[in-house]
């Protein structure tokens, strides 16, 4: 706040009671419930603490321990695969669906939007319950597919994706895609609708086909939306916790033991609150770097 005091501002006036009350409430609330916990997390990261016995300061030991922790490195890898594969695929699918919906007549657009939006409003835990069953080999989708294919004379043996190390992460990825497809599509749909139709008409008179129109009009104009969605998707995807915690419990083996789940377990199963806090700081740094670098790339590459 010191910077403001130095700046040449209009004479200081006694703030009204409204300003005083609201500004102070904001300041106190965010200090107490954001700034303080954040600083605390930073501090706890340098401690050994199980919440019960005495606190032992350990310096950077928690951070050093991460480098030797094979489960942590695996969690980092699993999360990187999950986020790295999910975000680009999901955003592409959302964009394509949004573009298709934007060009539909009102009625079918409404019907489809309703259907694709239902998963968005469905809480994770209900989705978990539904997919836990839908993924079942005998009673769910694999059984259905096997049934349908055998009726066509093809022998298939689809099984529960969550049962195998190779496909478990893919299963959760599919579920996540299902849950957020409608959300992203809606955001893109709104963005595309804001593009003036005259641009497309002009392009068409110049003889540009639909694909070229998309590439040269739609795409450049929705880039800012793509950037915003991309940043929020990375932040959201890295923090997905519920399906890993309830459905796969990190397994089979450590195949779905993602960063967020491992962090939770270190704190609440192993009572290593210091170690978990240090991990939280690493997660914060990763997300910060991801966000800032995306903004930087957007600024240098997309200037036109």
């Amino acid at each position: 706040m010191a910077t403001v005091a130095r700046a040449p501002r209009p004479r200081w006036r006694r703030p009204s009671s409204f300003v005083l009350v609201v500004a102070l409430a904001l300041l106190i609330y965010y200090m107490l419930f954001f700034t303080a916990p954040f600083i605390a997390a930073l501090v706890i990261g340098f401690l050994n603490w199980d919440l019960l016995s005495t606190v032992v300061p350990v310096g950077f030991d928690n951070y050093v321990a991460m480098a030797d922790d094979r489960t942590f490195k695996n969690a980092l890898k699993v999360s990187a695969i999950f986020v790295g594969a999910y975000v680009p695929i999901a955003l592409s699918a959302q964009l394509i669906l949004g573009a298709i919906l934007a060009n539909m007549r009102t009625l079918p657009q409404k019907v489809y939007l309703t259907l694709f939006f239902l998963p968005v409003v469905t809480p994770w835990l209900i989705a978990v319950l539904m997919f836990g069953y839908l993924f079942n080999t005998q009673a769910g989708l694999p059984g259905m597919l096997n049934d349908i294919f055998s009726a066509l004379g093809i022998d298939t043996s689809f099984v529960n994706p969550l049962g195998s190390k190779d496909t478990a992460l893919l299963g959760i990825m599919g579920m996540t895609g299902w849950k957020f497809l409608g959300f992203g599509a809606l955001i893109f749909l709104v963005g595309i609708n804001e593009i003036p139709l005259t641009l497309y008409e002009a392009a068409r008179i110049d003889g540009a086909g639909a694909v070229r129109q998309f590439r040269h009009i739609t795409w450049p104009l929705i880039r800012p939306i793509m950037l915003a969605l991309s940043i929020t998707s990375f932040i959201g995807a890295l923090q997905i916790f519920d399906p890993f915690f309830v459905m796969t419990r990190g397994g089979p083996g450590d195949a779905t033991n993602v960063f967020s789940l491992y962090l939770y377990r270190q704190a609440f199963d192993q009572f290593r609150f210091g170690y978990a806090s240090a991990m939280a700081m690493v997660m914060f740094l990763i997300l910060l770097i991801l966000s800032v670098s995306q903004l930087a790339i957007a600024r240098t590459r997309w200037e036109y």
Partner: protein
Amino acid sequence: MGVLGDPADTLDAAVIGRQTSLSTFGSRTRANLASTIIIIALVPLAVMAGLPFIWIYISSFKTDMEIFSPTLVWFPSTFYYDGYIYVWEETALVRGYANSILVSGASVTLSVFTSVLAGYLFAKKDFWGKTPLFIFVLSTLMVPFFAIFIPSFVVYSKFLNLKDTYIALILPHMFTAFGILITRQFLHSIPNELIDSATVDGAGDWRVLWHIILPLSRSILAAIAIIQFLGVFNEFLWPLVMTDRAELYTLPVVLRRVYGQGSAMAGSNRILAAGVVAVTPIVIFFLIFQRQIVKGISLTGMKA
């Protein structure tokens, strides 16, 4: 027209479809055919979106024998509703629902109220330290939940002694930086003259807020309420660590209990019934408020 399902063609057709409604260029029948093809091409995707819902509705009336029969049973042979009786009599699902609605409702009410207060403060008031305070509030949007999760848990459970209280579930949502940002942006568009004339007439800040700002910002506040409600209702990890007493479990925490009992084959019918009971109010709620929900998210989604 090309092969159905080819993404480039779909996109091509999509753009044509959009323009026929507004221009007379090109062949109408061709475009109509194209948009019909798109509408049909999306059906399988829509089926995938709806399948998890449809499948638990159907399967909740199957007996456990039918559910885990070695060959898939598509439809139940009898109308078996024991699962529903079990859910009603033996689980805390209804209580969980009530808790979730209470917590989400209180959070929404509080955060909408504080959003309009703070939004008005930042949009229309001038005071010492305004910009730094606004940047400070905004910066909390950059902090991922996991970064403050562990210290928050420590503060709420050890220092504030709020474990197993509704306050612990509501307090983190009392202010929303996102809501403040959106309201501020919206209130910027309200002309100052409107406020000034009221002030000249002797109205104080609170009266201006109540009689002018609140009625004008109804739509944006509704949008914030919807997004906030969906977020709090979906929340799982925080209520999980904050509640030990079953009377305080929110719906996701109850569902996790129910799901956890289902690893054995017996009781699957009950889990599915629980899923149906949990999801049905959400589906109904969504269908009733669909327009507002979609509008709310498209109003605010991109500004995040």
